[in-house]
């Protein structure tokens, strides 16, 4: 076992070794000459000890002992340490769950090599326990290990490397909270740390490589003006210019093609119009270093129309409302009422029907501002109140949480019911208002209708990027949402307040069902940072050793080196004394 050197800089003292050798080389050689009468030579001049002429060195015992003593002293100065037999440490492994960890050929991908490295660390480190933290978009503690044993297959079912990003900093912070300050942290990833870890608990092992890759970096599908539009963006993260034509496939048949011409390191996009009533489509690139970004699956966008009923006695206001409602394209005036727009507060309606109550003051005043607006509320998104004149009255102030005020006069308020139903109250007298003639009016109505549409069972997020938080509205009586992944696995997600949230990462089509709901979403890896493998690299950063660990877990052997030096020097002294006694001379 190679000892650890506490003060490796002390090895600089080893410069004395070649110095010693040089001394013996330059040291003047004296030929021994036995004489019967030294007194006859007393007149002779003393010779110098050394000179500038290099002479052949003859290794003598004195030289060897001096060498041993010097080496032992240098070694003692470095304070060599060997680990204690018994160590009592925990290891936490932070697993980079981002998609780029699967780049490369099977068996040599960063995840594969990281797994081998983890096994090696466990064998070498004498740990008492190991824990894994999966670092995706949010860190997750994986309970897959018992002591220092775990099953690779079980680990790999969790460590899927399909995340669009990896929050390693968050995972390291979680590791510190979970295991305390004495555990060792091993981060396995495919890139260098932003700043090298300081000496202490963290070792950063990267297994990435700069590999050429071509992948989709964006994909959208939308229904606009009755047309099904497809937007695709591709990134060329290779060193060559690429021209490629990709087929758009529906139900196994190509319905269109898209042509991309990309210079090295550049991106390109294409927009196509799909034929009407096109269902789920897929676009596939040829295989390369990273497979997960080579495929896009998109479902047709579903516009969830809101059953809207308009009961307004005021003819002018009725006309303005109907105009705005019709412009949204989201309202079904003939279906069951899910949104009631009325100026009669006594109108009976279904308990789950949202309401937009219109309050018309009889003695209105024109308010020109300043308007106090809660722009955090979704129905104020995109609204502008510059130049708005709003006819309202203090005495007719509606109840509820204000969203728009003129001074201290509520103009638009909201009331949220426990069931999720909302009642908006809009105070307006169109004879003294110009808002209905501004873009703010249809935008406000559009926001209210969209909010109601989003609250309908299901999700407006049909095509999502992996790792996106998908919020589903569930039917009122639903308690559990069943999510079936593209690979066929099922997850049961509990509903809270008629909502369920999931964060899908596996690319493909998810099927989401309750007793009365059955919908699908398409998940695609849209992560340019993961597709770009040019900044991936391998290496090791950080050291687990710090002074406390050194003291606690390593035994110093400097004393042995010191004793060796003392013995060598003692032998040197004895040998020198003997030689002086017997008249032996160094030569």
């Amino acid at each position: 076992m190679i000892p650890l050197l506490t003060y490796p800089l002390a090895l600089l003292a080893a410069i004395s070794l070649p110095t010693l050798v040089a001394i013996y080389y330059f040291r003047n050689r004296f030929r021994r000459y036995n004489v019967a009468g030294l007194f006859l030579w007393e007149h002779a001049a003393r010779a110098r000890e050394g000179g500038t002429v290099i002479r052949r060195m003859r290794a003598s015992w004195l030289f060897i002992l001096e060498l041993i003593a010097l080496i032992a002293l240098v070694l003692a100065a470095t304070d060599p340490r060997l680990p204690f037999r018994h160590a009592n440490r925990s290891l936490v492994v932070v697993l980079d769950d981002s998609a780029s960890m699967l780049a490369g050929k099977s068996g040599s991908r960063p995840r594969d090599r990281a797994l081998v490295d983890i096994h090696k660390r466990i064998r070498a480190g004498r740990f008492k326990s190991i824990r894994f933290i999966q670092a995706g978009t949010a860190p997750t503690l994986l309970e897959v290990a018992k002591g220092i044993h775990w099953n690779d297959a079980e680990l790999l079912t969790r460590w899927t490397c399909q995340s669009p990003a990896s929050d390693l900093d968050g995972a390291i912070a979680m590791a510190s909270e979970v295991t305390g300050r004495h555990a060792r942290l091993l981060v396995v990833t495919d890139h260098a740390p932003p700043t090298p870890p300081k000496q202490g608990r963290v070792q950063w092992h990267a297994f990435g490589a700069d590999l050429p890759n071509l992948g989709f970096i964006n994909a959208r599908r939308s229904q606009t003006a009755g047309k099904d539009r497809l937007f695709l963006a591709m990134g060329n993260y290779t060193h060559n210019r690429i021209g490629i034509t990709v087929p758009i496939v529906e139900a196994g048949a190509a319905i269109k093609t898209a042509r991309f011409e990309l210079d090295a390191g550049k991106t390109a996009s294409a927009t196509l119009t799909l034929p009407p009533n096109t269902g789920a489509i897929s676009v596939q690139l040829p295989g390369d270093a990273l497979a997960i970004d080579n495929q896009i699956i998109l479902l047709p966008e579903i516009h969830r129309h809101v059953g809207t009923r308009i009961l307004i006695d005021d003819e002018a206001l009725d006309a303005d409302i109907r105009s705005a409602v019709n412009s949204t394209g989201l309202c079904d005036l003939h279906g069951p009422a899910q949104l009631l727009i009325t100026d009669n507060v006594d109108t009976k309606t279904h308990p789950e029907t949202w309401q937009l109550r219109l309050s018309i003051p009889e003695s209105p005043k024109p308010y020109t501002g300043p308007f106090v607006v809660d722009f955090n509320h979704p129905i104020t998104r995109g609204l502008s109140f510059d130049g708005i004149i709003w006819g309202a009255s203090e005495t007719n102030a509606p109840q509820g949480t204000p969203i728009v005020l003129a001074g201290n006069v509520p103009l638009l308020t909201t009331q949220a019911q426990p069931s999720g139903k909302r009642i908006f109250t809009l105070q307006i007298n169109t004879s003294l208002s110009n808002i209905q003639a501004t873009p703010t009016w249809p935008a406000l109505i559009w926001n209210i209708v969209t909010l109601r549409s989003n609250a309908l069972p299901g999700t407006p997020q049909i095509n999502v990027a992996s790792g996106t938080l998908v919020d589903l509205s569930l039917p009122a009586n639903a308690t559990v949402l069943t999510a079936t992944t593209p690979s066929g696995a099922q997850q049961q997600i509990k509903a809270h307040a008629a909502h369920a949230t999931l964060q899908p990462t596996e690319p493909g089509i998810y099927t989401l069902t309750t007793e009365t709901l059955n919908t699908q979403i398409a998940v695609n890896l849209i992560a340019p940072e993961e597709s770009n493998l040019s900044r991936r690299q391998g290496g090791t950063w950080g050291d687990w050793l710090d002074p406390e660990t050194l003291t606690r877990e390593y035994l110093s052997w400097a004393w042995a080196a010191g004793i060796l030096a003392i013995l060598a020097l003692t032998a040197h002294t004895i040998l020198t004394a003997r030689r002086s006694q017997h008249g032996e001379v160094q030569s």
Partner: protein
Amino acid sequence: MKQLYRQQLREGEKVGMRYALTIPRDAMRGATGYQLGHGAGSSLDFKDFREYEMGDDLRLIDWGAYARSDKLIVKLFREEVSPHLDLLIDLSCSMDLPNTEKQAGLLTLAGIFSSAAANAKCSQGCWGAGDTVQPMPNGTQRASAWEGIEFSGTRNLSETIHLTPPRWRRHGIRVLLSDLMWEADPLDFLRPFSDGAAAVHIIQILAREEITPSLQGNSRLVDLESVNQQEVFIDSVTRQRYSEALARHQQNWHQACRQVGATLAVVTVETLIEHAWRLDALEKANILTSI
């Protein structure tokens, strides 16, 4: 003792067969021995007559002369004397100078003197001067029988001879085989060494490298005995100064030897070897005689 040393002593013995130790007049003293001394002794060789003195041995009275002259006359015979060689060998570390023939030269010369002494009918005693002066085991016998030669001494001879003063034979011949490479007043050694001796010979044995060193450049000089070291830069000037210092040192010894009546001879081992051990210098100094 190393077999090599014994071999070298034996070699010296062989060479010494053609030499005899020169016996000085003063060494011809003693009661009984193998040679006729100059004094009156109890040998059978008639020397002279003299008148009887109280205490003379009655057996020495010449009765014929008394009958003729009515005077008591005694006969004098020549004395028999036994000269002795005390050979002191320097066994300090410096005598075993590496990469030279110095040690071989020393033991060969020791063997030569042993043989020469035997040839001159001298008794002998060999002494080793390491850290102390001790009689060499079997030192009274021929050189090849000697034991205990080890070049391990670290003390100079001036200190050693005072530390352990040996009991030399009086009126003997004393020979020192050494390189004389220690820094002290030569008289500190010569006085005790020559005290009571009939003749003192100092043989300085040097290796050629010690006389004309071939060193050059940076050298670490190590004294073999004191283990002191000195790192020096040697060039021609340094070598010249060394030669002058050596000459001065030898001059000091010469003067000291003259003072005590000793003979100093300097031999270069390599030269002796090259000349097949022709000891001209020692003959010239009247220390050895060719036979």
